[in-house]
C-alpha cells in the first residue's frame, strides 16, 4: 500500500492582516482582511470586535466578491442619452465637480431649498446632514422613513431608546425571548449570536411572525400572526397580565410616569399632566392623599386613586391604562380571530411571560444608587426580553404597535434590568435631549439648526402659517408630525408633483430610488423621466453617487462614482449610529486596506471638495481654501462641540481622551493599531438601570454623551402625542387642516392603541383576501447581493411562497407561476408551496429582482427573468378617496412607509408563463461586460 499523501498542513495564510469594518450590511462587524501580494485574499470576522466577536455572516465573507464586482463604477459619468436609457460618457473628476458646483452654487445663493439631498444606506449621516445644514437646504434625510422610523421613534418617545443600535436583549441572562416580525435584516450577527446563546442554555424563544422562516424556524413556539395585528395581540397580552396582576408595580412607580396625574379638567390642558407651580408633574401620595411633585422625597405614589380638585377627579396614568386594557375588547377571546391566534395560546403566552418574569426573577449582587440618591443592594431583573424590527414597524399602525410593545416590556419591569432589554450608549437619551427639527432657510445661509429631531408638540412642526410643509418630503407636517427620520420615499413623488413646491436638483447617495428603495417603482421611473411640454425634465437635475451600477444610475444626469468599503475611510460614530454594546461604549473606523484601481473617489471626500468649492461654512478656511484634505482629515479634526468629534477614542494630544478631548492627529492610526475600533467599558455599578442610575449618568457626562445628567422616567403616557390631539380638538394656536383632525385624534393617542392598517380598513378584503410580505434573505443586503458572484447563487430569484391551502385552492403544481394583483399593480412570479405560513399571507424575497442591464448582470439573469419586487404593487399614496387629497400610504404619526400593509389577490398564471412580470426593457450598462467564469485565487 502506497503511503498517504501529505498535504501542506500549515500554508501561509496571508502576508498581512488589515482590520477594518464590514459594510456588507448595516451591522458593522469587525473584519480581518487577509492580504496577499497587496491584494485582498480572504475576509474573516475579528475576534476582538464588540459587534461580532469573530463570527461573520455570509455577506461579510463574500465581501471580496463585492470588492471585485464587475458592477463597480469606473469614472465620473455624464448623461448623453435620454434619462433612463443608461447612455453616458466618462468624464474627469474636475469636470464632474465643476458641473456640480455650477448647478449648486446658484441654488445656494437664491433658493437653497431647491436642493433635495437624500442618502440611502449611508453610514455617515452626521456628516451628510452637517453638509446639508451648511448648504442651507431643509431637504435632507436618510432612508429611515422607508426603513424603521416607527420603531426608532416609538422607542425614543416611550423609553428613550429603541431596538437595534439603541439596545439589545440581555442575551446572557434572558430566559424567555419574544421576537416580533421580520428581524433578520438588521443587527444580523448580534441577534444570531444572541439566539445561539439562548439555544445553548435551552431558553425559550417565541416567534411572532406570519412566516416561519429564518429566526422563526428555530423559535420554540411559533405564533403565525395575521399581518398588521401585532398591536392587538400585544395589548391582549397586557390585558391578561393586568387581569392577573402580573405587573411590576414597584418598577412602575419608581421608573415610569404611571403615577403621574392626568388633568381631567375640560379645556386646553385636558389630558396633559397635572403640574405644580414649578412645572413638575404631580402624583398622589398615598400617605397624605395630596398631589405632590413626582420626585418629592419619601412619598408613596399612588397608582390607583386620583385627587379631586374643584370637583374634577384627576386620575393617575396607571388608572387610565388599566381601564383601557382591561376592557373586554382586548380579551384574548375578542382578538383571537382578528389576530389569527387561538385565545388559549394568547393566554398561554401571557402566562409564560408572567411565570418567567415573576417566578424566575434574577438577582445580581451589585449595589447601585439611583438618581433620587436611594441606594439599592442588588440589581433585580425580570428575565423576559423582546425584540422587533421591520415586521412591526412597516405598517400604518406601526408606531402605536411599537409603543404597545414597549409598554408591555415596561409593565413587567424588564427594561434595563438583568435578563431584560438593555440600552446601548449613547442611549438612553430622552427626546428632550435630542434636537428639535429645523427648516429655517435663507439664500446663501446655513440652515438654522439640525434637520431632524423629536417634536414635543405642534409648536415644533416644520410648517408655514397656512400649514404648508416646509420640507419637500412633508416631514414634521400635520401629515406626519413625528417623522424623526424624514420621508425619503415621498421625495420623488412630491418633487414630481411640485407638492409642496418644485425642486431643482435631486442629489442622492447610495439610494436605489429608481428600483427597490421606492414604492411604486414603475411609476417612480416615469416620474424621473417625465418631461414638461418644453422638453425639460420635471425634476430638472439629478446627481447620484454610488459605488455600483445600480438601477438608479441610468436616471441621473451626473454620476459621482464612490469606492468600495475596503478602499475608503469611514467612521462609525457616536454622533451617528454607533456600534456600542450594552456593556460598553464603542466606535470604529474603516480605512483603505487597498487603493482603488479605478477612478472612483470616496463620496464623503468628494462632498468635502464640493463643499469647499461652494464655500460652505466649516469646509473652507478664511482664505477660501479647503479646510479638510479629505474625509480622514475631517474625521480627525472636526469638532461638533468643543472636545467632541466624530470619533470618541484616543482623543486629546496624548491620545488618552475618552469621549472628550482635543483632536489627535494620530487618532486614525491609533484606531488601526487597535483593530479598527475603540471600546470603553461601562463601570459595573452602571451596567443596569441606566436611565435612573447615578453612576451611569455621571459616566455618560464624563464621556461626552450628555453635558449634564439626564435621568428621566419612562413615558407609558406620551404627553407630546396628547398635545397633537388637543390641537386637533381645536385647542392652541397651531391648528391642523380639517381633513386631518379626526385622524390625529384617533391615532395620536397618548396611550398605545391598535387600529386596523389603513389598507385593511379601506380595501375590499373579499376582493383582496391576502396579505403580501417581503423579507430579505439573511445572505443578501438590499440589492447589493445580486452583483456578488457567491451570494447571487444562494438567492438568485424570488419565488412567491404560498400556503398549502392556497396551493390546493388554485390547483398549483410545481413549476407553475402566479399573478399577484393589488389595487395598484400586478406582478407574476413562480410559485412555491410553504405550509409554515399564516394561511392568509403570501411572501417573496425582497430586493433580489433586478432590472435588465443593471448591476453588470447578463440580461437573462434570473434576477431579471424569474424575479419581481412587491414594490410594484405598493403605491406611496392610498387610493384616492374622492376628496382630491393625496393621502400617503404611511404611518400617520411618523410617516413610515407602510409597505407591509399590502393586500392582494392571487391567480394562477396561464400555462406557458416563463418570464416574470413586469419585464422592463434593458438599461444600457455604462460598464464593460462582466467576465463569464471566475476562479479567483490570489497567489502570495
Amino acid at each position, binding site marked *: 500500500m502506497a503511503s*498517504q499523501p501529505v*498535504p501542506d498542513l500549515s500554508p501561509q495564510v496571508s502576508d498581512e492582516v488589515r482590520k477594518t469594518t464590514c459594510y456588507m450590511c448595516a451591522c458593522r462587524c469587525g473584519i480581518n482582511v487577509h492580504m496577499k501580494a497587496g491584494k485582498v485574499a480572504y475576509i474573516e470576522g475579528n475576534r476582538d470586535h464588540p459587534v461580532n466577536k469573530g463570527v461573520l455572516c455570509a455577506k461579510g465573507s463574500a465581501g471580496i466578491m463585492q470588492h471585485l464586482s464587475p458592477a463597480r463604477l469606473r469614472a465620473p459619468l455624464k448623461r448623453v442619452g435620454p434619462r433612463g436609457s443608461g447612455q453616458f460618457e466618462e468624464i474627469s473628476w474636475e469636470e464632474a465637480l465643476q458641473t456640480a458646483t455650477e448647478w449648486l452654487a446658484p441654488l445656494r445663493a437664491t433658493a437653497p431649498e431647491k436642493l433635495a439631498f437624500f442618502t440611502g444606506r449611508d453610514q455617515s449621516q452626521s456628516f451628510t446632514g452637517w453638509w446639508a445644514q451648511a448648504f442651507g437646504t431643509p431637504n435632507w434625510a436618510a432612508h429611515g422613513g422607508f426603513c424603521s422610523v416607527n420603531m426608532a421613534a416609538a422607542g425614543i418617545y416611550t423609553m428613550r431608546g429603541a431596538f437595534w443600535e439603541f439596545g439589545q436583549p440581555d442575551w446572557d441572562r434572558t430566559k424567555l425571548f419574544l421576537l416580533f416580525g421580520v428581524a433578520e435584516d438588521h443587527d*444580523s450577527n448580534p441577534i444570531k449570536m444572541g439566539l445561539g446563546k439562548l439555544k445553548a442554555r435551552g431558553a425559550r424563544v417565541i416567534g411572532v411572525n406570519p412566516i*416561519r*422562516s429564518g429566526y422563526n424556524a428555530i423559535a420554540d413556539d411559533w405564533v403565525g400572526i395575521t399581518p398588521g395585528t401585532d398591536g392587538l395581540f400585544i395589548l391582549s397580552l397586557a390585558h391578561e397580565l*393586568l387581569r392577573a*396582576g402580573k405587573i411590576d408595580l414597584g418598577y412602575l412607580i419608581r421608573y415610569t410616569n404611571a403615577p403621574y396625574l392626568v388633568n381631567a379638567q375640560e379645556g386646553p390642558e385636558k389630558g396633559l399632566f397635572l403640574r405644580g407651580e414649578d412645572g413638575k408633574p404631580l402624583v398622589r401620595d398615598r400617605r397624605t392623599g395630596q398631589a405632590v411633585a413626582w420626585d418629592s422625597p419619601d412619598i408613596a405614589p399612588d397608582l390607583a386613586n386620583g385627587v379631586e380638585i374643584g370637583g374634577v377627579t384627576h386620575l393617575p396614568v396607571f388608572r387610565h391604562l388599566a381601564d383601557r386594557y382591561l376592557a373586554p375588547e382586548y380579551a384574548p377571546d375578542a382578538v383571537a380571530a382578528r389576530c389569527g391566534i387561538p385565545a388559549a395560546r394568547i393566554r398561554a403566552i401571557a402566562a409564560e411571560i*408572567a411565570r418567567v418574569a415573576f417566578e424566575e426573577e434574577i438577582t445580581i449582587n451589585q449595589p447601585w444608587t439611583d438618581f433620587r440618591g436611594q441606594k439599592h443592594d442588588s440589581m433585580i431583573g425580570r428575565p423576559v426580553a423582546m425584540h422587533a424590527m421591520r415586521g412591526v414597524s412597516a405598517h400604518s399602525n406601526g408606531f402605536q404597535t411599537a409603543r404597545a410593545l414597549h409598554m408591555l416590556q415596561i409593565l413587567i419591569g424588564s427594561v434595563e434590568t438583568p435578563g431584560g432589554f438593555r440600552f446601548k450608549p449613547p442611549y438612553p437619551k430622552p427626546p428632550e435631549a435630542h434636537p428639535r427639527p429645523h427648516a429655517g432657510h435663507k439664500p446663501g445661509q446655513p440652515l438654522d439648526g439640525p434637520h431632524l429631531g423629536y417634536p414635543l408638540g405642534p409648536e415644533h412642526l416644520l410648517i408655514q402659517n397656512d400649514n404648508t410643509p416646509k420640507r419637500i418630503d412633508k416631514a414634521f407636517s400635520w401629515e406626519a408630525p413625528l417623522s424623526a427620520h424624514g420621508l425619503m420615499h415621498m421625495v420623488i413623488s412630491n418633487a414630481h408633483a411640485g407638492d409642496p413646491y418644485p425642486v431643482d436638483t435631486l442629489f442622492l447617495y447610495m439610494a436605489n430610488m429608481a428600483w427597490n428603495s421606492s414604492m411604486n417603482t414603475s411609476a417612480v421611473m416615469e416620474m424621473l423621466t417625465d418631461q414638461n411640454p418644453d422638453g425639460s425634465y420635471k425634476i430638472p437635475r439629478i446627481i447620484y453617487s454610488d459605488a455600483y451600477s445600480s438601477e438608479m444610475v441610468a436616471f441621473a444626469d451626473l454620476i459621482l462614482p464612490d469606492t468600495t468599503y475596503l478602499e475608503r475611510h469611514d467612521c462609525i460614530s457616536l454622533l451617528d449610529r454607533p456600534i456600542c454594546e450594552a456593556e460598553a461604549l464603542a466606535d470604529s473606523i474603516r480605512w483603505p486596506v487597498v487603493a482603488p484601481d479605478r477612478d472612483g473617489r470616496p463620496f464623503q471626500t468628494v462632498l468635502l471638495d464640493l463643499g469647499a468649492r461652494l464655500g460652505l461654512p466649516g469646509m473652507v478656511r478664511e482664505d477660501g481654501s479647503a479646510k479638510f484634505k479629505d474625509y480622514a482629515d475631517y474625521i480627525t479634526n472636526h469638532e461638533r462641540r468643543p472636545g467632541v468629534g466624530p470619533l470618541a477614542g484616543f482623543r486629546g494630544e496624548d491620545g488618552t481622551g475618552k469621549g472628550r478631548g482635543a483632536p489627535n492627529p494620530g487618532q486614525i492610526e491609533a484606531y488601526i493599531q487597535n483593530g479598527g475600533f475603540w471600546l470603553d467599558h461601562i463601570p459595573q455599578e452602571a451596567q443596569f438601570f441606566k436611565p435612573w442610575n447615578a453612576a451611569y449618568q455621571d459616566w455618560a457626562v464624563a464621556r461626552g454623551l450628555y453635558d449634564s445628567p439626564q435621568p428621566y422616567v419612562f413615558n407609558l403616557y406620551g404627553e407630546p402625542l396628547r398635545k397633537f390631539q388637543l390641537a386637533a380638538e381645536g385647542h392652541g394656536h397651531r391648528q391642523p387642516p380639517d381633513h386631518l383632525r379626526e385622524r390625529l385624534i384617533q391615532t395620536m393617542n397618548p396611550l398605545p392603541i391598535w387600529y386596523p392598517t389603513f389598507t385593511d380598513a379601506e380595501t375590499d378584503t373579499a376582493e383582496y383576501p391576502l396579505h403580501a410580505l417581503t423579507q430579505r434573505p439573511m*445572505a443578501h443586503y438590499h440589492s447589493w447581493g445580486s452583483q456578488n*458572484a457567491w451570494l447571487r447563487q444562494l438567492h438568485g430569484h424570488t419565488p412567491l411562497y404560498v400556503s398549502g391551502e392556497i396551493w390546493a385552492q388554485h390547483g398549483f403544481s410545481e413549476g407553475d407561476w402566479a399573478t399577484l394583483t393589488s389595487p395598484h399593480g400586478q406582478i407574476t412570479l413562480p410559485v412555491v408551496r410553504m405550509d409554515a405560513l399564516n394561511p392568509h399571507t403570501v411572501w417573496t424575497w425582497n430586493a433580489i429582482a433586478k432590472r435588465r442591464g443593471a448591476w453588470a448582470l447578463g440580461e437573462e439573469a434570473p434576477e431579471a427573468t424569474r424575479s419581481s419586487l412587491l414594490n410594484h404593487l405598493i403605491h406611496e399614496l392610498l387610493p384616492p378617496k374622492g376628496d382630491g387629497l393625496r393621502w400617503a400610504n404611511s404611518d400617520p404619526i411618523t410617516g413610515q412607509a407602510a409597505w407591509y400593509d399590502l393586500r392582494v389577490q392571487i391567480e394562477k398564471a396561464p400555462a406557458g408563463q416563463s418570464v416574470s412580470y413586469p419585464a422592463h426593457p434593458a438599461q444600457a450598462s455604462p460598464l464593460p461586460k462582466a467576465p463569464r467564469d471566475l476562479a479567483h485565487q490570489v497567489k502570495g
Partner: protein
Amino acid sequence: MTSLPPPSARKLGLVIDLDTCVGCHACVISCKGWNTENYGAPLSDMDAYGASPEGTFLNRVHTFEVARDTAPPMVVHFPKSCLHCDNAPCVTVCPTGASYKRAEDGIVLVNESACIGCGLCAWACPYGAREMDSAAKVMKKCTLCVDRIYNDNLPEEDRTPACVRTCPAGARHFGDLGDPDSDVSQLVAARGGFDLMPEQGTAPVNKYLPPRGRDTLEIPDLASLCAPAPQAAAPSAQPTGLLGWLDRALERL
C-alpha cells in the same frame, strides 16, 4: 491507497445543531472563501454574472419543512458537507488513489494532482458531499479545513474549520468524535445526536443534533400564577376589583 485505513481512534468531525441553525449561509460562504484561497484549486463559478450561475461549494444549506398532524409545520435549516464517514464509499471506488481517508484523524481528502475527474466518488457518496469543479476538472470536497486545524501560522484559537469559526449562531461544533469524553461527543450524547442515512452503511463521523420540541408551550391557568388574584376584569370603578388589589399590593411595597 484507496483501501480504507483501519478505523482511527481519533475521528475529527462536525456536530451540527439543527435546533440552532437559522439558515444564514454564513458557513457556506466562509467555506467558499477559505477554500477558494487554499487547499488545491480555487472553487470556481461558471457563468458567474449570467443566466445560470453555477459554482463549486463544499457546504450547502438546505431548508426542509416538516408537516405534523397535531402541531404547526416546522422549518428546519439543514447544512450539509462531507461527513468524513468511517466506511467512506467515495474512497474505495477511486481508481487512482486520489481519494483517501487519513489514517491519523479520519479526514477524507482528495489529492487533486492524482484526480482524473472521473466523478465516480461523487456517485458513490449518498450525501452529495463531493462536487467536480468545472474549471479545474478535479473533485472538490470538504477538507475539514485540514489546512487550518493543524496550521502553525494560525493562532491556536483559529485552528478550527472556517465554517465553525464563522457560524454566528454557534450551531456548528468541531472536535474528536472518537473520544467519548470530548465536548462534541458529550454534546452528541446529551442531545441525541444522529447519523444521516444510517441505512447506507457509511458510518458517518459528523453528527446532527435534532431540533428540540417545537410548539410545546403548555397552557397553564394564568390565575393560578397569581396570588391573590385581582379578578379585575370589571372596570376599575369597583373597589373590589383592580383597585382593591392595587391597594393591597401597593401597601406591601
